[in-house]
Structures are given as structure tokens and as C-alpha cells.
């Protein structure tokens, strides 16, 4: 009886031991090591890094093993580690034009400077479940592409067919506020929103992006460009007086070209939606750019008619560490609150019963009473 709520300490220790055992599977099964996960489950590692907001394939692979493949647990592990790291400063904005794209496709133009490059993609594969995995030889490309790859949106921008990506000449990019270090209050700046979306849950953003394609916040998107590749990260070192490269990270970028707007004073232009995610994450980058554009309704004076346009709804619920934690906290004991509710419902029922009884006593017509209440 009362012992039911006792013994928490021992129960926890036993549960952890059991969990570790489940993680190993059968006792003679060989353990997967983290380099195997890092190398052979690259897309999964990307997702954990993106939503965990920490570019570290090794730690992401370790987190996935520790969490027994529970992605949201792995994300939580990485976040709880990341948050204890000191922040030294802000890197120079990465240059995705200079990024030698491993993959680059545009749905808006057949031929683009720098060419289209399919790269490593699941697109056009037949989704037939295979017994064994094969690794065919990859043909070495005969000519190394040295041609620069300007962004498709920059090509459109040259003719002012698309809105500028910065307000005006002479504008300097302000240091973005850091969502993880400064309190965020609504309404957010676009830079803050993009940070939140970039670490937001892939599934949630996918569904929201999808909803905008189905009439809940229509924004007529075209995939102007999707590119994937490694980019150099530079850090401005004040002691040296110049920026120094500190490493390379793999990124997926999506530039969505959207419905145009115009006014009496301004010629019609296409508008932009932007997505940028760690690693190989096209679905996420595309969803992010759809949602980014949808959330910019205020800039274009669009009417709010759908959930994906609602900044507080989207941003406050996009973080899967927060969402998973709060949903799962319902497993925690709620005896006290439930007891309070029990007390109230019992007294309400008693009062109801005594009202019923006193109504019945003078043999009033209960039938009409019920009808009146209906």
C-alpha cells in the first residue's frame, strides 16, 4: 500500500540497469561502435546534430548509441552537453556561394551557371527493399567543375525580379541575437525565427510546410535552389586582426522562390523563403524555407488565415526537446492535483444529488425540469 510510492532510489537504479541491458540486446550480439554509426547512418547523425544544435558527428553518433536509436533522446543528450560549452564569439557568416556543392538542383531553370548536380540523393532511386547492400564503383568525373555557382536567387536579383536579401546598399548585418543565450520574447526577428526553425523538429516543420501547400496559407513556392556541400567556417580573431578558418561543416541550403507582391509604389517581385540546416537534410531545409516564408506575412501585409502563419504557434511548438519533455512529464506523479480534483468532483456530485433529492421530494414533475435544463 503506502510502500507503492516509496523506494524511488532503488527503483531508479534497477530501471537504469535494465535499460542498459535492453540497449545491448542479446548478450552475445556485438556492440555497434560509434564510427560505424557516424559513417553509415550519416543522415540520422545530421538530424541529431541539427536539432541538437551542435555540429559534432562523433558526439551525435555516440548520443544515438546511448539513446538506443531514440532520436529525440539523442537530441536531448547533445543539447544538454552543448549548453554547458562556453561561447567564444560569432563566426563570420558562411559563404554558401563559394561552397563546392556536392549536390545542387534548381526547379526554376533548366540550365544554370555552374550546372545542376544530382550528387548523393535518394531522388530517383527505386524504393525496393534490398536483402543486401551494395556499394558500386563511383565514376570519377572527367572534368572538375571550376565554374562558379552563383545562387539562383542572385541571378533573379540581378534583374530585381526577387526581393533583395538585405534592405539596401550600405546596410551592415547586425550581430544576430543568440536564441540559446538571450531570452526570446514574441514577436521575434526573422533571424531569431530562422535559428528556431533550423533546430526545430523535422517532422513538425514538414507537416506545417505541407499544410501551406494545401491551402492553409498559400505561398506558391518554387524550389529555386537546393544545395548540399561542405563549407569553411571562419572566426575573426581580434589578436590577429583577420579571420582564420577553424574547420569545415556540411550544410544543406534551400532558397525558395515564392509568389510575388507589388504595390502602387513598387514593381512586382518574387519573395524568398530560406532554409539552412546542418548536414544532409533536404527535407528539413525545404520545409524550413516554406515555413519561413509563411511566417513573413506581416512584411507583405498578408491576411493570417492558417496555423503555419502564426509565429507563436509555430515557434513555441517547434522544439522537440521541449515538446517531448512536456508531453512525457504526464508520466510523473500528479497525486496531489488529482486528489484536489477528486475532492471537488465528489463535493459537486454530493450537491447535485441533494438538489436532485430535494427536487424529487415535493413530487414536482421531474420530466419538465429535465427538459428545461436540456
Amino acid at each position, binding site marked *: *500500500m503506502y510502500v507503492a*510510492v516509496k523506494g524511488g532510489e532503488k527503483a531508479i537504479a534497477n530501471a537504469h540497469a535494465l535499460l542498459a541491458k535492453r540497449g545491448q540486446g542479446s548478450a552475445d550480439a556485438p556492440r555497434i561502435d560509434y564510427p560505424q554509426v557516424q559513417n553509415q547512418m550519416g543522415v540520422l547523425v545530421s538530424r541529431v546534430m541539427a536539432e541538437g544544435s551542435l555540429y559534432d558527428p562523433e558526439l551525435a553518433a555516440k548520443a544515438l548509441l546511448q539513446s538506443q536509436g531514440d532520436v529525440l533522446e539523442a537530441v536531448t543528450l547533445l543539447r*544538454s552537453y552543448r549548453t554547458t560549452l562556453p561561447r567564444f564569439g560569432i563566426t563570420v557568416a558562411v559563404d554558401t556561394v563559394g561552397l563546392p556543392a556536392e549536390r545542387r538542383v534548381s526547379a526554376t531553370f533548366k540550365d544554370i551557371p555552374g550546372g545542376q548536380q544530382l550528387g548523393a540523393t535518394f531522388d530517383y532511386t527505386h524504393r525496393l527493399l534490398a536483402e543486401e547492400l551494395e556499394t558500386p564503383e563511383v565514376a570519377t568525373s572527367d572534368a572538375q567543375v571550376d565554374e562558379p555557382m552563383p545562387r539562383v536567387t542572385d541571378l533573379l536579383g540581378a534583374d530585381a525580379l526577387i526581393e533583395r536579401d538585405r534592405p539596401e546598399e550600405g546596410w551592415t548585418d547586425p550581430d544576430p541575437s543568440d536564441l540559446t543565450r538571450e531570452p526570446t*520574447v514574441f514577436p521575434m526577428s526573422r533571424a531569431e525565427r530562422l535559428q528556431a526553425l533550423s533546430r526545430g523538429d523535422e517532422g513538425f516543420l514538414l507537416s506545417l510546410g505541407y499544410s501551406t501547400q494545401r491551402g492553409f496559407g498559400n505561398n506558391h513556392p518554387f524550389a529555386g535552389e537546393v544545395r548540399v556541400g561542405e563549407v569553411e567556417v571562419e572566426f575573426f580573431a581580434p589578436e590577429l586582426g583577420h579571420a582564420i578558418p577553424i574547420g569545415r561543416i556540411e550544410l544543406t541550403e534551400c532558397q525558395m522562390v515564392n509568389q510575388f507582391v507589388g504595390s502602387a509604389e513598387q514593381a512586382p517581385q518574387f519573395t524568398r523563403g530560406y532554409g539552412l540546416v546542418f548536414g544532409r537534410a533536404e527535407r528539413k531545409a525545404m520545409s524550413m524555407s516554406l515555413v519561413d516564408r509563411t511566417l513573413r506575412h506581416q512584411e507583405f501585409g498578408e491576411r493570417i488565415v492558417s496555423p503555419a502563419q502564426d509565429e507563436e504557434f509555430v515557434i513555441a511548438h517547434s522544439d522537440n526537446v521541449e*515538446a517531448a519533455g512536456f508531453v512525457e512529464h504526464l508520466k510523473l506523479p500528479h497525486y*496531489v492535483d488529482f*486528489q484536489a480534483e477528486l475532492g471537488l468532483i465528489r463535493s*459537486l456530485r454530493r450537491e447535485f444529488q441533494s438538489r436532485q433529492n430535494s427536487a424529487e421530494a415535493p413530487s414536482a414533475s421531474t420530466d419538465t425540469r429535465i427538459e428545461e435544463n436540456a
Partner: protein
Amino acid sequence: MSGPRIVYNEGYLDELTKRVVRRALLKGVAIPGFQVPFASREVPMPRGWGTGGVQVTASVIGPLDTLKVIDQGADDTTNAVSIRAFFEKVAGASSTTRTYEATIIQTRHRIPETPLAENQIVVYQVPIPEPLRFLEPRETETRRLHALEEYGLMYVKLYEDIARYGHIAKTYDYPVLVNNRYVMAPSPIPSFDNPKMHQSSALQLFGAGREKRIYAIPPYTDVESLGFDDFPFEPQRFEQPCEICESIEVYLDEVFIDDQGGVMFVCSDTDHCERTLTARDHDRITEVNA
């Protein structure tokens, strides 16, 4: 690379983060009941499991402190055990289950039965810090309502309860007016505990990790549970005493004791129950010996 890659700071949070939290706490103390936004960090337990309370405790705890952690009033419920174990691991503070020994009491859903003292801090774990949230889901809107001291929505809700049920149908997280200015969510403590917040000798700190808000009630502050002249606030009461320690006027858990629907009512505050029982047994022994 040599040496371990993964190293944590004393008290888990880095020093700069503790400073951020302390600043928010100071602002909260200066404006009782006002929700201060802070850049809530991840901590190694899930959101909604006390991450706000953990950050507040981590920022105020020192090596000389004695920590007590309760969940549902009990020291030995699993999440309380887990949080206490976390601080034993990452901070040098000692821990206790005795309310009067603790300098910091982190709590979920209860205020201890033992009256609190001036040298004590109560840290509440808060799931939804905004008392108006279920009346108005938008942060931008509720912020304005607080700024204008516009609490009509809340009073209408309470009035509608009375019209529908003959009572204010709010049994926990019962809204309070702090220092005659801000309407505040006391976290899901039962309304039974609300009167303990009023003019408390202890400093009361509230941390909502997922919602990124901190608020506070300094010692000896007026905390009034909302009500009407003709329908004043009435805290819940229990008619029976605890069936273990025989305390009256305490909050009780209803515990099933068989599969026939038999129940017994026992103290929710395990420390209070143990101490009362020990003291009573001691008295009995003294009586017998006398």
C-alpha cells in the same frame, strides 16, 4: 586528442549562465509576481520535469547549503530522488529530507506542512507560468494584459465557474494576486497550500524552464488568492486525519489498500508524517513509563 572530451562545470551550469539566472532572479524579487524572461538552458533532464527549478537551484546553491527536494510532498518519489541525486553529483551541497534542516527546498506541487523560516528558499518547478494562458494563448496578448493590470478575463472565468458549479472549480494552480499588483500562477500546488504563500518568511522563487520564465515572491509579501466578496477564496480541506500519524489540517493522499476499492488517507508530506509519528510514539512511550 588526450584527456576526456566531455567535462562539466561545478554545479553543471557554467558561471556566466548562473549569472544570467541570478540577474533574472533579482529582477523577479524586485517586481514580485512579474514573469521575467530568461534564456533558459537545457539541463540533463527532460523539459517539463523540473528544468526551471533545477536552473534556479543550480544558480543559488553553494557548498554550505542543504538541499531538500520534494515531488507531491514526498522526498522519495522517483523524480525527487533523481533531482536530488543530480545535485549530489554535480554540486558540493549536502541534502536532507527534513524541512527544518534545509536551506533550499526544491518542490513540485506542494509547500511543506512545516512552517518555513527566514533562512530558507523555496524553489518551485513551474510548468505553465502564465496564469492567463488558458484564457488567452498568445504571449504578446497576455503580456499586454499584465502591463495594463487588466485581469477581467480571469474574474469572468471564476464567475462562470460559480454560475455553473456553485463553486470556483479550480483546485490547484489557483491564481493569486501578488503584492496587490500582478496575478500570478503559484504552480500546480493544491489551493490548500495557497495560504502558506501569504507573508511567508521564506524567499519563494519560481522557475519555468521550458517556458523560459522566472518569477519570485520576496519574504513577507502579500499573496491573495483571487475571489469575490460574496464568494471568497476557500482552500480545500480534509475532514479526516492522516491514518498513519493522525495529523489534522494537513494535505492527504488517498491510497488504495486492496482491490475492493478500500482506501486510506495519509499525509502527502512524508517528512511531516514521519516526524509526527516519531514524536507521538515518543510521547506514548513517555506516558507508559511515567
